[in-house]
């Protein structure tokens, strides 16, 4: 079953949130920073929106994927690999814009926050529309849910779930979540251009003969998300506590071969 429940809009506001500007880090650092942010949002309740890119082409595995499943995708077998804490399939992070948004959760919430998928993806779809790109959620394409075998594809971008954004039949945006007791982290990838390491996945620029860049998109995504979530994003940097926590998490988890090969 696909998740087709109707969900009403999510508003956190009015409140102030923190915006971490577009920056580039290594694979383990990127995942550790997202985890450190989730930890701090769990403590403080202050939402955080972050945009980032990757220092080198990276394959990220979904939390429950087995490392040996990499054999299913030979084109990416030479690039570095990191295991996410979020669900879904593997992603080749290369010529893309990656975001993360972390928000507090009400006590006793259960399951995925589908409304957060919807609202973040709507902000990105509206931004893309400003640049002439018509991106729609998969649930509105009229295409039926994929069979289990199709949704077990190794690569996230070869799977389809309800809120994935699709352009000309190709998935260009997918997101995943990790919950703590009091907060949720959602991060996602917007494919701008085809990667040499996943040539079967066209980016928006190839699909529509455009030359969109991450820098062009980020301010508008933040603005639209500010309006829909009721959060006034203020540009900020990682706190010293977040930086030291991220360093620790990076060493102990994401840069560790034990973590990457745990399944």
């Amino acid at each position, binding site marked *: 079953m696909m*998740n087709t429940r109707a969900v009403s809009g999510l508003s956190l506001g009015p409140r102030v949130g923190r915006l971490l500007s577009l920056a580039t880090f290594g694979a383990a650092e990127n995942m550790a920073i997202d985890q450190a942010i989730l930890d701090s949002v769990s403590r403080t309740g202050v939402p955080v929106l972050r945009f980032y890119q990757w220092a080198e082409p990276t394959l990220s595995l*979904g939390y429950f994927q087995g490392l040996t499943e990499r054999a299913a995708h030979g084109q990416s077998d030479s690039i570095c690999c990191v295991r996410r804490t*979020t669900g879904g399939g593997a992603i080749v992070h290369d010529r893309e814009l990656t975001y993360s948004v972390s928000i507090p959760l009400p006590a*006793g919430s*259960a*399951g*995925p926050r589908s409304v957060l*998928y919807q609202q973040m993806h709507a902000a990105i779809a509206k931004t893309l529309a400003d640049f002439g790109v018509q991106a729609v959620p998969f649930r509105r394409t009229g295409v039926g849910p994929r069979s289990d075998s199709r949704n077990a594809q190794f690569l996230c971008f070869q799977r389809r779930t309800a809120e994935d954004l699709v352009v000309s039949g190709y998935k260009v945006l997918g997101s995943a*979540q990790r*919950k703590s007791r009091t907060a949720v982290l959602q991060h996602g990838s917007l494919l701008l251009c085809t990667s040499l390491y996943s040539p079967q996945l066209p980016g928006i620029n190839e699909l529509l003969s455009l030359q969109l860049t991450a820098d062009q998109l980020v301010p508008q995504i933040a603005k639209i998300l500010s309006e829909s979530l009721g959060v006034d994003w203020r540009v900020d940097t990682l706190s010293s506590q977040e930086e030291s926590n991220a360093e620790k998490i990076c060493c102990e988890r994401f840069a560790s071969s034990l973590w990457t090969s745990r399944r």
Partner: protein
Amino acid sequence: MSRDESKLLYAESHEWVDLAQEDGKAVGTIGLSGFALEQLNDLVYMELPELGRELSVGEEFGEVESVKAVSPLYSPVSGKVIAVHEDLPERLEELNDDPYDFGWIVKVEVSEANSVESLLDHAAYQKQCAEAG
């Protein structure tokens, strides 16, 4: 015999626990509530703890994935894991139909009787679900 959900205790994080005496020991059988399973919608993975692991109240003892979201499972009681429902991760599609019998996840030998004092009875849990839903 079917478990009566109205007789169970519940954590705010939606795990249920059935407390009983087995061979002179206090044993808590733990699962996920029907409400939580409905919210989770489409479970695809579940990770279970190892036998013998010592758990404290509120400690993560497993994880589930649904709609690309990974959520921890929290222990409603303190104690040692003495049984694990090993078949469950391969049969998650059956969980929604029978969350209180087939859907047990682990059994814990409860080490602190007072660790259940903060749990909700069925009426209080129903109220929480109504407010969340």
